């Protein structure tokens, strides 16, 4: 790991706050997608998607019963990968 200098504390403080604001940004993006596929496509915007047929019904129904779950999975794995990378970039990983 990096050498500890006398001003290490301030560096660590700045590094930590840059890390945290990037994390918050990633979380916000993920949560927008999370809400869009479930509450959006699955429920509120379903009437707008009725013109797109999926196996005997419409896209909104598919999102409510299948699609949203698949997107949730992708979101969690994306977040884990992205954050583990971010941990290393900012030197806050667990060795």
């Amino acid at each position, binding site marked *: 790991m990096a050498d500890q200098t006398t001003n290490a504390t301030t560096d660590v403080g700045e590094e*930590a706050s840059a*890390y*945290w604001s990037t*994390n918050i940004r990633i*979380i916000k993006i*993920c*949560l927008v997608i*999370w809400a869009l596929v*479930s*509450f959006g496509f*699955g*429920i*509120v915007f*379903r009437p707008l998607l009725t013109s797109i047929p*999926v*196996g*005997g*019904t*419409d896209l909104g*129904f*598919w999102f*409510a*019963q*299948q699609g*949203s*779950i*698949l997107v*949730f*999975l992708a*979101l*969690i*794995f994306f*977040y*884990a990968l992205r*954050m*583990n990378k971010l*941990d290393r970039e900012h*030197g*806050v*990983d*667990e060795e």
Partner: protein
Amino acid sequence: MDQFTLNLLFVGASFALYIGIAVWARAGSTSEFYAAGRGVHPVTNGMATAADWMSAASFISMAGLIAFTGYDNSSFLMGWTGGYVLLALLLAPYLRKFGKFTVSEFIGDRFYSKTARLVAVICLLVASITYVIGQMQGVGIAFGRFLEIDTTYGLLIGSCVVFAYAVFGGMKGVTYTQVAQYCVLITAYTIPAVFISLQLTGNPIPAIGMFSSTESGEPLLVKLDQIVRDLGFAEYTAAHGSTINMVLFTLSLMIGTAGLPHVIMRFFTVPKVSDARWSAGWTLVFIALLYLTAPAVGSMARLNISELMWPNGTSGEAVSVEQIESAPEYAWMATWQKTGLLDWEDKNGDGKIQYYNDANEELQAKAAANGWEGNELTKFNRDILVLANPEIASLPGWVIGLVAAGGLAAALSTAAGLLLAISSAVSHDLLKGQLTPNMSEKSELMAARLSMAAAIVVAVLLGLNPPGFAAQTVALAFGLAAASIFPALMMGIFSTRINNAGAVAGMLAGLTVTLVYIFLHKGWFFIPDTNLYTDADPLLGPIKSTSFGAIGAAVNFAVAYVVSGQTKETPQHIKDLVESVRIPRGAGAAVDGH
């Protein structure tokens, strides 16, 4: 070999396996009892968490609720999976970094207050006990079916088994047993679904089969919509309920998922912060295997049941009483009648059983013309659908035995996990943390076991007169967890501004409004006939009691924010604690808080 012996064989063999593992991995110290010594791999942990999570509500009850309501109950599917996104992004890694054993320990330390910890314990107990009621319902139904007795006796026998099983080991025993239970329950859920999907659509993957065409070339969902419409029921794929209620219900289930102690506790048991992130993902993979199949099980079972009741089509003659009593494909009806959860009555004495929606005006006209005197399939409890499903589709006997074992695995694993959360709340947080700090390890373990026994007695008493179908009872527990625990945890991590007074006021406000709203609709302390309102005509417009958790959570956030603004600022050492929780570096092994 008859079906009863076959069921007994499958259930017996799976139990022998679980008990064997529990004995092999028996907990020795308190740390092993609660958190398995933190030596659990993310994939293993994910599988165990999935088993812990998928309870009688997911396995036994959910597909039945979807089958009889259709699209409107998609909330269960989105809510109970979407919560993992919140858990993975907002809570799991930080709580792991914090490194204590229980949720209330985090709340007590972050809000530097014994009162906050006590309030958190109370919230946990209220949510967990409500949850156990739902589990015991499922246990009662599963035992009732496979022993072919009334569900009340099933419940009593089942509760003894659950207790004996949970008391055996702590988290460590439970973790490895739950891996075995996951394997049993997912096999039991998937195999009949694959068979049925092949029968109906020729596609071996139920999640795809559901959107495929039947033999006649007509899409399965179109055919289903047509049949249920003919019988006067609401169309399967269309939306009927209030959009606001559906959004709030889904949100309550999601937030509740991220606020339930027995799920959060799981993320304390992984070795590293990065593992906590992965673990949430793996858990959802294992959960999704069942959740993607569940809507297929629901729609296909609804189609099969409707066709069995109208073997000559909806415009032909209904099934005759004689057929139900003698034909092998109707044998399941007689077996389920014994549990008291399924019944029929030839009201007009024409020797046939007409199944239709007698509240529908169009159908009332048709009934008058044909001499029907009301729906004659008088009772069909939604909770029996998954367990009866292989019998309804005339699948081989071993599949039926496997499903019985799977249903019990689901109910048992969650009941055990919840009892563990309850016992750790009482013995670790309440007694050792607050009342008798000098308690020895031995008496702590004793207190843990005694509180399990007390919790199970309460759950059985309330489970005899449950406030809804199993998944609905469980949904109430999620509302309570959503309104009380989740906001406190989230604010504790993402805001340094929320102080001790704010957190305590927020949790109390969220819990109280939600509990009162539920009791107003479901009866005080779930005692029947003490309710002032019903979910058919709720107090606040379209908002049902199961959907109120999201509003309770909003109340919690608002109260905490306002009270924190009016009281003394959070001290510096707590702000430092929050800063340290936010970065993974330095996450050591967790320590006992005392």
